[in-house]
């Protein structure tokens, strides 16, 4: 009798398992960035014609980049800023702040940038360690990188790293959702991304929606190996995961989509030997499998990079183009689908050392504003979050200067 009963349960499990797999959304294609769909890739500023020098100076005055610090909090250490466009055209930034990186008093903070007035509001705490551990029903030792995401249903979500045991290699990702553009938040939920005690998955760069509305997030693994992964999220749960690189050297992938099936990823380079250059990988099947590509001709001192697809078809990367240290921060540009990267602007550079250490202008995050302007948020010497707003005509003029020089 028991024998028959156990066979029946097994048969039931087989059917339920089959239905479960069958009901999962099949892999789908990338969305095309609006800029690449259109044939009219003509920016507002004059595009240089071959053999003709662009006459930047003859144009109407181009607004210079506007830099400002996000209002300070009492925290001595801040890091890992990123921002998202709100429905009203303003920006909301998130970063972590505390007595030092990895301290138990680190909280995730937020502030809103009034795009019309051009200034930042007061910063507020989104979540602290105790609220996170109560919400997640498990001990949390420290909080890490926050990443805002706009869900395909239009809601604001915040993905963030937490650690229960050990250092950053012990990270897991959690997320929560807001129905009021980031004023209040739901109870956080945990993503399960790894079979070894769910250890060691972190986020840095923004993702994208697949054409079926599932969320693609480029994440990375840090324990034992260091490699990039693309996770696919549906209804707050990870429903697929694909390795973007293997080995022990590549972190924090950023993804640029070229076509519905094609994309390129660039990585922070963490190898101990060999040239310190931004590494790359490509996919030709919408992210299901990735092959490593050649390194870019851009130096990388094992530091995070940020990428942005512009509406005129160009792409931007913000990076520390050094082989070690993070005292210089620059913007580089390349046309979509190419790897002809050119550094067009130096945003920070300060080689003074304090106690033998260089200052640090790092962990950039790029965002396209409501009117096509570009926003950059980065860590200013670990003490402040800095924000620079670029007019796209300024970027165009810098590109043309570079092209004509």
């Amino acid at each position, binding site marked *: 009798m028991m024998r028959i009963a156990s066979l029946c349960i097994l048969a039931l499990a087989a059917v339920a398992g089959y239905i*479960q*797999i069958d009901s999962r959304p099949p892999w789908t294609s990338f969305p095309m960035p609006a800029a690449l769909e259109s044939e009219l890739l003509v920016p507002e500023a004059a595009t240089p014609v071959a053999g003709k020098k662009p006459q930047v100076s003859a144009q109407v005055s181009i607004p210079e980049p506007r830099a400002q610090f996000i209002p300070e909090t009492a925290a001595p250490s801040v890091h890992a800023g990123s921002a998202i466009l709100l429905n009203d055209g303003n920006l909301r930034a998130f970063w972590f702040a505390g007595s030092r990186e990895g301290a138990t008093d680190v909280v995730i903070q937020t502030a809103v940038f009034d795009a019309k007035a051009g200034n930042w509001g007061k910063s507020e705490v989104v979540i602290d360690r105790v609220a996170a551990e109560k919400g997640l029903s498990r*001990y949390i030792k420290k909080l890490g990188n926050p990443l805002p995401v706009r869900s395909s249903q239009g809601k604001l979500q915040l993905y963030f790293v937490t650690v*229960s045991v050990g250092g950053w290699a012990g990270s897991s990702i959690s997320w929560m959702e807001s129905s009021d553009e980031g004023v209040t938040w739901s109870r956080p939920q945990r993503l399960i991304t790894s079979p070894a005690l769910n250890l060691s998955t972190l986020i840095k760069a923004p993702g994208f929606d697949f054409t079926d509305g599932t969320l693609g997030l480029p994440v990375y693994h840090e324990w034992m190996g260091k490699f990039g992964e693309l996770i696919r999220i549906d209804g707050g749960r990870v429903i697929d*995961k694909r390795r973007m690189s*293997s080995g022990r050297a590549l972190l924090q992938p950023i993804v640029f989509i070229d076509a519905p099936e094609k994309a390129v990823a660039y990585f922070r380079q963490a190898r101990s030997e060999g040239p310190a250059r931004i590494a790359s990988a490509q996919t030709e099947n919408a992210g299901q499998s990735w092959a490593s590509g050649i390194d870019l001709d851009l130096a990388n001192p094992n530091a995070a990079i940020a990428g942005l697809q512009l509406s005129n078809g160009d792409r931007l990367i913000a990076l520390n183009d050094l082989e070690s240290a993070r005292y210089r921060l620059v913007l580089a540009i390349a046309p979509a689908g190419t790897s002809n990267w050119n550094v067009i602007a130096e945003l920070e550079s300060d080689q003074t050392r304090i106690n033998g250490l260089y200052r640090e202008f790092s962990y950039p995050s790029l965002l396209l504003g409501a009117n096509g302007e570009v926003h950059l948020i980065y860590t200013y010497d670990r003490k402040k979050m800095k924000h620079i707003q670029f007019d796209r005509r300024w970027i165009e003029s810098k590109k043309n200067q570079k092209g004509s020089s």
Partner: protein
Amino acid sequence: MLSNSVMQIVALMEIAISSAILLALLMQELFFKAEGAVRMVALRALVCFVLANLLFWPVFTLISPLELPLAAYVRGFTGELSITAMLLLWTAYISPKEIHVPAGVKVWIALVAIVFYPLALGVSMLDPYAWGFGSFTLLAAVIATALFAWLAGFNRIAIILALSILAWAVGWHESANLWDYILDPFLGLWAIGSLIWSAWRGRAAQAQTGYLFRKG
């Protein structure tokens, strides 16, 4: 799929019960090894019930700087146990006399763990963990393992594997990956450890016999 709040309570209860059982087994091993009374199922269940409640409710937050129930600290480190590991532990505790996991099954768990974890942690571009999200082949392999166990007469193993698949299919835990319901590092380490232990004991016994034999 369970709602998030229910899932959190269920998961914490599971961890509390599993931790209580491990504590009870440890106490039994240390203090009551000779006592026959611990074989009584009712007493074992009572001990587990009391310990699990102490772990599940935030009682110690009232008298110490702790912020959470004790089980939440365990969960911070372990996450959810796989359903297979959890049910093997629970059933072993309730019916201690039965021979629980046959050596063949332990070998199979150990082999899978030894191949699976290095690959899942990034040794190459091959990631078997990704199969757990929607691979009919992996599902078929788990069902085949359960069928083998059933044919070999290990009903309990077959039922536990079937329940693990069912738990995955209904979204019992936070993970949507079948691997997380059938295998965890503790189960793998236990299988490997217990095989090494029995091999070592076997050799020691053999050495002893050999010694006596030569002496005689």
